[in-house]
């Protein structure tokens, strides 16, 4: 909502500082997003009085003026060439001296025009951005001395204050509502200023209340949809003269960013921005009947709205119709056909309250938002409609003439009384934490229009019609808090009781997982969970923004591959990333399954280059992958085993129940020539896993270490060999570790040599060589018998 500082001043009857207004509104109501000084580009323009007008010696249509600019440009009167037909000696005009930058960006130079030097320029309204008039220079009526800054001489200096109005404060969508808040803060009162020419008491015939139907000055009005339009007022004005608005009205609208159109449209817009009450004026001559019927639209009914678009209506919408067809989508936009034009003489003026949710659904269905729909949707003051209509009629008569021959009609089949809410002072104190006395509450609430009366221990508070948001006690407590200023409340910590909610286990697991992978040298990445379908059971969005982001991810790995490709594009070859996050799968019966997952991706050098290693550092390979996969699986899915996979996955992680919970392998990517292999893994996170740490006593007896070089026939795995070793050498074998693998001519074809380091220990006493030899002999026998594995000789 754009506010004009000058407009607010007219309502509170005192001068205001825009910065102070912004601070007050932010502290008490809604935040001000910015303050813009209007006409700041006219700073250099002065008041100039033309002393003498002569013919230009070399041009018929130019004149040579002697301008008194109060000494600007060095001393006495200045010679200025002027092309305007209306320049007259003795009159006053805006004068731009040499060096001024005009609103269109041109900088005035001293230059010769047809051989005569011109020391500045007398300006038209258009050149100053003060209107469309470019036919002549702008004559100004001012008592200010020549040389005065134009902004001080004319009532146009203003600031535009941009207020971010919350959805619950429709009253702040009009200057009057904002003025009410300012007046409460500043101790002023709000009074609507009279319009020029209407300072005498209005001769408006009284407004007549009726139920659902009536006749105004020959126009039949029928309210058939009181649900959509609970209150509906119509006035008829005859004999208006449609034309441009007077300057004061055009200025008001321009100041809030509205383009003036004609005096009728401008008058209704003025009421909208002053009182937050949309008004709709339409041409009586175009009205068939003449009748106005407020009804639900019929399915498929069509009309062309003001913006030239054909709209198809539905029975969910309220339509304002004449005897035959819709002329207005109620509360949203009128038809091009019934619009007020230059030839309009008789007007129908609508002032209504439309059901907010009906308006919201209508404007969403039509994808058509207007200043009116924006306000109806938030709720206008249903009690204030007659006042708004009277003020609108005053304004129309002031700017466009015309007369109201018969009292307007006010259809309100189920009148509502202003809402009453009770307030308990002790509840205020309890909720706000600071004691409030009854008279404090009365003073604060009545300052912004609540009517307060004591009622037992409570206060009976009557809510004004412009505050549809205040429906229960707590809403009044918010009023008390904001009107006494949030800054006034203390902020010292007070004792509290510990809560009953335990820390979420999943958060603990994620924290451990992140720490482990970061420690292993991976950088955490956060990519977006929206993308194209990445699996047959990917969950589609019903209303995606684009096809690239049409599904929820079912895996993390594809996005990590994309991140690696991005890094390649910025010439980064060594990339190690991980991500933890939610993945989604379609599930039978509606609600998709969602669970946490962790993934990692590795490519490029195994470690940073160091000068001690003359050769290139080797790239990450599948053994680096296995290391990180096992690390992630051990934290994310405790109890899961890493086992060989098929050709697509080099490894898998299987849960104790046999379910595959993780995969690791080489990945396809759109790689440049210089890139390394891309390796990745992903593990489903078991959020139930509690970390159980156990202590093993440190050994007190020495260990014996033996290296075993074995020959493994094809098809025998290291895992099988270790299983036999562990079984046979139990309980003395403490640890086995692969030291080396050999494939080559020194072992029989089809076999390989693998060396294990075995560590033996007895917890109770020192081992003897013979005991270890026995164990090894037994193990070798078993290995040979079961797997055909023999000790390597030579």
């Amino acid at each position, binding site marked *: 909502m754009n506010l004009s500082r000058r407009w607010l001043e007219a309502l509170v009857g005192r001068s205001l500082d825009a910065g102070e207004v912004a601070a007050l509104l932010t502290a008490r109501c809604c935040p001000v997003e910015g303050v813009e000084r209007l006409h700041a580009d006219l700073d250099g323009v002065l008041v100039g009085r033309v002393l003498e007008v002569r013919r230009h010696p070399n041009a018929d249509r130019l004149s040579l003026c002697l301008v008194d600019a109060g000494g600007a440009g060095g001393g006495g009167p200045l010679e200025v060439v002027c092309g305007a037909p209306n320049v007259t000696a003795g009159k006053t005009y805006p004068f731009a001296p040499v060096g001024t930058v005009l609103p269109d960006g041109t900088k005035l130079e001293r230059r010769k025009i047809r051989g005569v030097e011109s020391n500045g320029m007398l300006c038209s309204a258009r050149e100053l951005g003060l209107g469309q008039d470019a036919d002549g220079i702008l004559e100004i009526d001012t008592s200010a001395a020549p040389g005065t800054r134009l902004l001080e001489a004319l009532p146009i200096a203003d600031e535009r204050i941009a207020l971010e109005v919350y959805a619950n404060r429709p009253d702040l969508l009009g200057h009057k509502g904002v003025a009410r808040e300012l007046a409460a803060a500043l101790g002023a009162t709000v009074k609507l200023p009279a319009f020029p020419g209407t300072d005498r008491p209005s001769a408006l015939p009284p407004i007549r209340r009726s139920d659902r139907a009536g006749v105004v000055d020959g126009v039949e009005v029928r309210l058939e949809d009181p649900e959509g339009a609970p209150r509906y007022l119509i006035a008829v004005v005859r004999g208006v003269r449609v034309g441009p608005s007077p300057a004061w009205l055009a200025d008001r609208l321009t100041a809030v960013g509205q383009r003036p159109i004609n005096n009728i449209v401008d008058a209704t817009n003025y009421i909208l921005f002053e009182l937050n009450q949309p008004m709709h004026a339409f041409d009586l001559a175009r009205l068939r009947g003449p009748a106005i019927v407020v009804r639900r639209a019929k399915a498929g009914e069509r009309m062309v709205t003001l913006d030239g678009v054909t709209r198809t209506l539905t029975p969910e919408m309220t339509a304002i119709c004449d005897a035959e067809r819709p002329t207005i989508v109620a509360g949203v936009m009128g038809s091009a056909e019934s619009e007020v034009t230059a030839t309009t003489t008789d007007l129908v003026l609508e002032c209504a309250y439309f059901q907010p949710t009906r308006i919201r659904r209508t404007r969403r269905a039509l994808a058509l938002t207007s200043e009116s729909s924006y306000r109806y949707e938030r709720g206008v003051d249903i009690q204030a409609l007659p006042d708004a209509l009277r003020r609108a009629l005053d304004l129309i008569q002031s700017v466009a003439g015309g007369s109201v021959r018969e009292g307007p009609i006010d259809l309100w089949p189920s009148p509502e009384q202003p809402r009453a809410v009770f307030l308990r002072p002790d509840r205020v104190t309890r909720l706000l934490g600071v004691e409030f006395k009854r008279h404090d509450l009365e003073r604060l609430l009545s300052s912004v229009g609540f009517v307060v009366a004591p009622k037992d221990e409570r206060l009976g508070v009557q809510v004004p019609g412009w505050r549809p948001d205040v429906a229960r006690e707590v809403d009044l407590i*918010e009023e008390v808090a904001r009107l006494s200023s949030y800054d006034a409340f203390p902020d010292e910590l007070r004792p509290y009781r510990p809560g009953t909610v335990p820390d979420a286990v999943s958060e603990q697991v994620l924290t451990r997982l992140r720490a482990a992978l970061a420690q292993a040298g991976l950088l955490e990445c956060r990519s977006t969970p929206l993308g194209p379908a990445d699996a047959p059971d990917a969950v589609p969005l019903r209303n995606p923004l684009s096809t690239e982001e049409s599904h929820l991810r079912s895996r993390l790995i594809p996005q990590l591959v994309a991140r690696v490709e*991005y890094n390649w594009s910025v010439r980064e070859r060594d990339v190690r990333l991980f991500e933890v996050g939610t993945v989604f799968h379609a599930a039978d019966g509606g609600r998709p399954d969602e669970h946490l997952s962790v993934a990692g991706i590795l490519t490029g050098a195994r470690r940073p280059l160091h000068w001690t290693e003359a050769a290139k550092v080797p790239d990450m390979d599948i053994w680096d992958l296995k290391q990180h996969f096992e690390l992630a699986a051990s934290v994310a899915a405790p109890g899961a085993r890493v086992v060989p996979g098929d050709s697509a996955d080099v490894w898998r992680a299987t849960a104790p129940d046999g379910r595959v919970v993780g995969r690791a392998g080489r990945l396809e990517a759109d790689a440049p020539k210089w890139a390394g292999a891309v390796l990745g893994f992903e593990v489903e996170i078991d959020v139930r896993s509690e970390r159980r740490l156990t202590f093993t006593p440190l050994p007190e007896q020495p260990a014996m270490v033996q290296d075993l070089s074995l020959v493994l026939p094809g098809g025998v795995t290291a895992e099988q060999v270790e299983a036999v070793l562990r079984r046979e050498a139990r309980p003395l074998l403490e640890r086995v570790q692969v030291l080396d693998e050999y494939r080559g001519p020194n072992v029989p074809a089809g076999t390989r040599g693998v060396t294990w380091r075995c560590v033996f220990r007895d917890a109770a006493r020192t081992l003897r060589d013979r005991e270890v030899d026995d164990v090894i002999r037994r193990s070798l026998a078993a290995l040979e018998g079961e797997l055909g594995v023999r000790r390597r000789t030579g």
Partner: protein
Amino acid sequence: MRDLLARLDGLRERLREVPQADEHRLQDLRAEILGRKNGALTDIIRSLPQLDAESRKAVGGPANTLKRDWEAALDARAAELGRAASVLQDIDPTMPGRPAWRGGLHLVTQVMDEICDIFHELGFTRAVGPEIETERNNFYALNFPKDHPALDSQDSFYVSGDLLLRTHTSPVQIRTLEAYRPPIRVVIPGRVYRRDPFDASHASVFEQIEGLAVDEGISFVDLKATLSHFARKFFAADTAVRFHPSFFPFTEPSADMSVRCTVCGGRGCATCKQSGWMEILGSGMVHPAVLENCGVDSERYTGFAFGMGPQRIAMLRYGIPDIRLFYSGDVRFLSQFAGGVR
């Protein structure tokens, strides 16, 4: 005595010879000045006991000071020569050490952890909830009226039926209030979705941290105190904090909290849009309707809730110009906050 002092002056003069000395000369100097047998300075110090008390005092102090200075100068030169020798013969200790890859947590994770940890000190535990939510939990139990303009800022992605991607972490308030009895003190970190196209300051997916405290006797003062404490912990102990009215359907009264702009100190700059203040979070007293919707007695219990965007806070704190950097996975960005070799 005067003679002794003159000799001391002479010996001090000779300190100048030390920096030029090579290894041999250094040994000679040490013997000549500090030598146990005939060292010039040793002799002077040895003669002190024979002097009268006044002279002993006048000579003893400077003599011992000079001895320390000689020792220091000789040692320093020896160390210098030793280093130079080792460079030539053995290693150059200025060569870089062996590097290792340094991993690290995403900046957003770090900021979220930092925020949650501050609240943890005040007794807030971490709670979580699903990202796919019902309309009831995401809107209506939170007191959003149907067909109300308050829904405009919550444009949502729908999955199916009345299931949508949560637009805020607030539905976890509902889940927590329904599952636990007061006193409740939780922070709720999580990912949320808005149907907004990506640009420099908007993402369709971002993180939030929600907070909820419900118990008997919790007041607006507790809200202000808790959140001001957070701001002063997170930013700086002398951070100026400001609260002003706001609107959320699920809180009443509602308040936005701003802190004095950390970039310009309040003078006005591009970061704070010339206002001198940075908006950090939204908050308010839990609306009684929310408590009632969850079966909590709203006369007996009161509470406050708050929500903030860690991405936004990280952007303000670290001057990050574009929210898309957080999602880029660019290792040059990520490693800046991992603090190490990449």
